[in-house]
């Protein structure tokens, strides 16, 4: 189903992505992005942080697609909440949910399927991507790849427009990040369910069993946890951008 993946990752899919710069507009104002090299650095840091989070959530959402309707509804609601927790910036939450809604709008018609009805209202974009992948007959790996790829191409196009860069140069920058896109997407396949199965704290946390030891990987990370890599710089840029009255992009 490669063609469906290409369609899903196509920047011309009318899902509203073109009105979001992924932080590039503010990064340009802040002097952080001004030429191809600085653009590549910016895209790389975005890819390995919010791109990795998006890829992880999209893959997890796609994995939930096979379940019974009630299960996948619950699963997608959990992934939506997990994505919220990984997106504390109100501006970035807004941008993600706007793009999620846009993708649902086109996805519902382009790949009609009953699964769309199990999505929460205004889902985060990666969650919508995962569900679109399910509807289009794609798998979790494809969903992750599309999410990671879009984390780079949206801002790249925005930079091209804002800085009037040579489009061939920008295409080159994007192509050079291809391996890293694949690596970020592949890393998400190591998380199994994507959701911590740990039970919420009991009503009597004082018992000596109250603290679960859990299992962790070598990094001390719960292997059930979705990627949560974050870049505080992107949060700051997004919030400063949201306060501006004069801007070309919604985020």
């Amino acid at each position, binding site marked *: 189903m490669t063609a469906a993946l290409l369609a899903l990752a196509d920047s*011309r899919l*009318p*899902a*509203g*992505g*073109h*009105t*979001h*710069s992924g932080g590039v507009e503010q990064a340009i104002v802040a002097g952080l992005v001004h030429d191809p090299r600085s653009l590549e650095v910016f895209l790389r840091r975005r890819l390995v942080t919010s791109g990795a989070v998006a890829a992880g959530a999209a893959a997890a959402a796609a994995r939930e697609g096979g379940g019974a309707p009630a299960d996948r509804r619950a699963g997608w609601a959990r992934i939506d909440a997990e994505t919220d927790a990984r997106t504390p910036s109100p501006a970035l939450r807004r941008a993600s949910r*706007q793009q999620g*809604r*846009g993708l649902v*709008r*086109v996805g519902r*018609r382009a*790949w*009609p*399927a*009953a699964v769309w009805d199990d999505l929460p209202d205004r889902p985060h974009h990666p969650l919508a991507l995962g569900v679109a992948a399910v*509807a289009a*007959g794609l798998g979790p790996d494809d969903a992750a790849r599309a999410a990671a790829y879009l984390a780079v191409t949206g801002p790249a196009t*925005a930079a091209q*427009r*804002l800085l009037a860069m040579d489009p061939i140069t920008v295409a080159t920058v994007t192509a050079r990040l291809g391996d890293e896109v694949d690596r970020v997407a592949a890393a998400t396949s190591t998380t199994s369910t994507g959701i911590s199965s740990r039970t919420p704290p009991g009503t009597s946390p004082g018992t000596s069993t109250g603290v679960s030891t859990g299992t962790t990987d070598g990094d001390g990370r719960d292997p059930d946890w979705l990627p949560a890599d974050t870049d505080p710089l992107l949060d700051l840029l997004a919030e400063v951008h949201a306060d501006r*009255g*004069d*801007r*070309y*992009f*919604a985020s």
Partner: protein
Amino acid sequence: MPPDHLLDDYVDPYDDPAARGRRHGPLRVGLGGPVGSGKTALAAALCRTLGAELDLAVVTNDIYTTEDADFLRRHAVLPDDRIEAVQTGCCPHTAIRDDITANLDAVELLEARHPGLELVLVESGGDNLTASFSYGLVDVQVFVVDVAGGDKVPRKGGPGVTASDLLVVNKTDLAPLVGADLDVMRRDAAAVRGGKPTLLISLREDPAATEVAAWVRQQLRSRAAQHA
């Protein structure tokens, strides 16, 4: 046979509930045309003239600032909660034609906020003569040019001039000053528009935009008849 998932709940994937003329809810009127031709002035005029009789709202597509939205607010032609500004990502053309998501969000937000809404005006960010609205976004579109650009504009054509549902040639008061021949413009427009209407107006002289308002009322009536 299409794959199974295409058959779930759906009879025909091309059956478009939002297709032109079939959409329920408010009439959506696109206002397109080059920068400075008078789109915002026309939107303000229509709000003033139709505001008393219709439940209406406006979506603006400023390129960089929220100037158009601010103008409408400042001149208090509409309460704040009836004006939505969208960012167009440096590409106002894309936002009304190729990927209308942001504008649909704005329209749907206004519809949700004002359940009785009858008319939504969508003003495009000024673009050149090739800009036109997707009918996924609007039901009808008005293309606004002005005489200041010279009387050759209608002859030059472009989808806005030739295919819009209404062509408005604004600022006729300036015609003598710029040496534009209104008869030439009227004749050229008729030649390329295949019978679709053209109005030559001056918002300076008629701030109520009487003729354009009458055309909008006519659109509302014919759609009501269609849905009846």
